[in-house]
């Protein structure tokens, strides 16, 4: 996919389509957007995403942008972050927001649910140690509330603490007073969010274009 290409290359798209599950049409549209964001280059950098005006008033903007550059989301068992990403990696990150098809079995839906929750988990677990510690969780809540007024860190701290307590109560049940709850592991995370039905909520319609309906 060189920058000089002006026509979508069916062959390469087929590869991507198999990997991510998007249709050719969707890949084409996303490719156009990728080119627009990266100013017709092959790779996308953080600054390119930083300049998107719609993101400027989003409280968790940093985390969203980081998620695009997080190797853990590239499904290649990598770790750490990169400075720039190719279209393929962009597409893989986007594929986390595809809705499940109607004819999926329960196991397939479970897999998709895990995948999406893994994405969220990675967003919270910034130091990549497999658990969301209290500090990280506090950071999450602070960011969430950062745009919403001057209530300060104490409120966020209180909320994060209560949330952590809830997770610990649900996951661990009983703990001795001197035991220490390290942090939210991925399994605990799954447990507390199992009622949210994430596979139906974490979707973007745009990526669900298996009909002729195209919302622009």
């Amino acid at each position: 996919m060189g920058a000089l290409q002006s026509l979508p290359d069916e062959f390469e798209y087929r590869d991507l389509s198999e990997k991510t599950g998007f249709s050719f049409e969707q890949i084409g549209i996303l490719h156009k957007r990728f080119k627009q964001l990266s100013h017709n280059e092959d790779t996308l950098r953080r600054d390119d995403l930083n300049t998107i005006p719609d993101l400027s008033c989003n409280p968790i903007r940093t985390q969203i942008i980081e998620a695009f550059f997080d190797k853990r989301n590239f499904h290649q068992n990598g770790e750490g972050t990169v400075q720039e990403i190719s279209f393929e990696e962009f597409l893989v990150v986007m594929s986390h927001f595809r809705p499940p098809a109607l004819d999926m079995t329960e196991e397939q839906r479970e897999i998709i649910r895990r995948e999406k929750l893994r994405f969220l988990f990675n967003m919270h677990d910034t130091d990549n140690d497999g658990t969301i510690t209290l500090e990280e969780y506090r950071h999450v809540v602070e960011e969430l509330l950062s745009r919403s007024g001057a209530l300060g860190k104490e409120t966020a701290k209180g909320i994060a603490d209560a949330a952590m307590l809830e997770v610990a109560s649900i996951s661990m049940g009983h703990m001795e007073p001197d035991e220490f709850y390290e942090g939210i592991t991925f399994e605990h995370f799954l447990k507390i969010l199992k009622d949210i039905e994430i596979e139906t909520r974490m979707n973007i319609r745009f990526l669900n274009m298996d009909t002729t309906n195209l919302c622009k």
Partner: protein
Amino acid sequence: MPAFSCAFPGCRRDLLVIVLVVFVGIGLPIEASAPAYQSHGTEGSYLTNVTNTKKAFPVLAVNYKHVRQPFEIALWILLALLMKLGFHLIPRLSGVVPESCLLIVVGLLVGGLIKVIGEEPPVLDSQLFFLCLLPPIILDAGYFLPIRPFTENVGTILVFAVIGTLWNTFFMGGLLYALCQIESVGLGGVDLLACLLFGSIVSAVDPVAVLAVFEEIHINELVHILVFGESLLNDAVTVVLYNLFEEFAKVGTVTVLDVFLGVVCFFVVSLGGVLVGAIYGFLAAFTSRFTSHTRVIEPLFVFLYSYMAYLSSEMFHLSGIMALIVCGVVMRPYVEANISHKSYTTIKYFLKMWSSVSETLIFIFLGVSTVAGPHAWNWTFVITTVILCLVSRVLGVIGLTFIINKFRIVKLTKKDQFIVAYGGLRGAIAFSLGYLLSNRHQMRNLFLTAIITVIFFTVFVQGMTIRPLVELLAVKKKKESKPSINEEIHTEFLNHLLTGVEGVCGHYGHYHWKEKLNRFNKTYVKRWLIAGENFKEPELIAFYRKMELKQAIMMVESGQLPSALPSTISMQNIQPRAIPRVSKKREEEIRRILRSNLQNNKQKMRSRSYSRHTLFDADEEDNVSEVRLRKTKMEMERRMSHYLTVPANRESPRPGVRRVRFESDNQVFSADSVPTVHFEQPSPPSTPDAVSLEEEVPKRPSLEADIEGPRGNASDNHQGELDYQRLARCLSDPGPNKDKEEDDPFMSC
């Protein structure tokens, strides 16, 4: 008569006696209304006394005419409520038969009884129905409408409401007309327009019936909101079609222009209704901004503005139901941010109460009207109507779902479709509309009979069987889940995430517009409609506070810290720091401090005078606070570890120091002051790395109770103070926020 024929325990028998007395009570006054020698009013009686020969002064006299109307109304309502009471005393019955069926049966009985006495049973007067009985139910539904599922499914709901109703009308009207053309039926005089008019009346799903039945089966949120939303929104279609066909039937012919005007009329009616509702909603929200000094009348504003919205739109023949719904939906977030907690509770209870009474009365009157009304029975017509109702509903739902599923992310399964189709009940609105038909239509009686039959069929057969069917088909039920702070955090997180990713995609989708609306709402609208600084508060915090308040209340009521799962986990497990354990001696000291402080406070509370403008009840608060004290102490023991140590640069006043210290006496009400452990006012923090969880005391300059100052404590000997602060907060009135008590019982206003 299933309700009374079996053997029953003594209390039920007593109730029956009461009920019979009530029946007789209704019968007697009606008989006694024959003109008696008593005249209307005391002046009249003096006159007759003067002109006639002098009688003995009537020591005891009966003047029924004077009180007749209110008396009968009250009696009816009492009857309805006693019936409702009675049903719930028979557990087996209320589990099998939905309440609406039982009430209709009671109505039939009462109607029969009245007829036996020889009087004319009252018919469900359409004006009474539309102006008095229907609005409370709709307002209750609209005010407490679950917004998120409604807006997520609004497209589907609109399709069902508009296109589904249109389909039903034309399908039924057309086929019935075809039926009438058949010679053997003997209904040759019915023309197409009359049939279409009939179709429009009987095809609309009724919100009252749906509410009554669905409330008892606890189906999952999606199906519930689909059927319920459809029943609310199809009012516009029904109004337009009804008026349209009435006009056409008068004239007799239809032109293309008329059809076009009909379509325009539909948009005017629905959008006009929405507009009227929105205007009144904003007016109500704006008014509630200024009610901080007269809290007692706050609920009245909500009710009256909504009722005015309904009446105004009915005046213009717009859709009153939609106006009412929109009014409730629009005003709710702002009003709730402004009114006190007591007003909120009042509104909730009054709405539930009125809608409950209305519903009961409607069903009873349906039964009575069945006995009373003129009937014209035609087997073929009526049976065909019932069958066609079912068939057209099923076909409509299947067909529309097929189309809708192409546009939905969460598709409707076959089970969902079945419940949506089966739950399309008809009710009193259809009957009232039929009753409104002028006598000009020679088929009026036939139509009425058919309508009543359809209603009975849907309410009895479908209403009774839907619950076992739901069980049989294992349809997903409503999830009874506790509000979880994690879910709330992640819901909000997801919203922002999806908005962000939509931004990255360059796609202006669902989340983008929702975010824009939220921002507009926050920057402009809330500023105008919410009093004080409350409009800055984000949802997450409001949710968190609500949860804490609920926990506190539950703790008071149930006597222990509520937790779905018994766990011994406390903050110490999360955040281990060197937490000094409290010795027994210290605990006793703290208890003593708390008790003595509470005594002082109680004395002060009793000396306040009772004023009409506050609902503060000193004695009640005392009891509650006593209980709270006990529970708080228990909770305190559990939460000891919440209080963390404080950096040394804080001042730590002695236990003996009891001065009121307020950070900012003139601070505006801000997002704070709720009985939690975890909050802090947004005043400049005294230490940048404050780790302690502390509380702030709201501004109560005249509160002379011994409250410790907000700063500088987290060591153990001030835990009592902290808890006492929390207690004081429970006792005092924090101010205008959605979980607040009433204002200023302590302040001399």
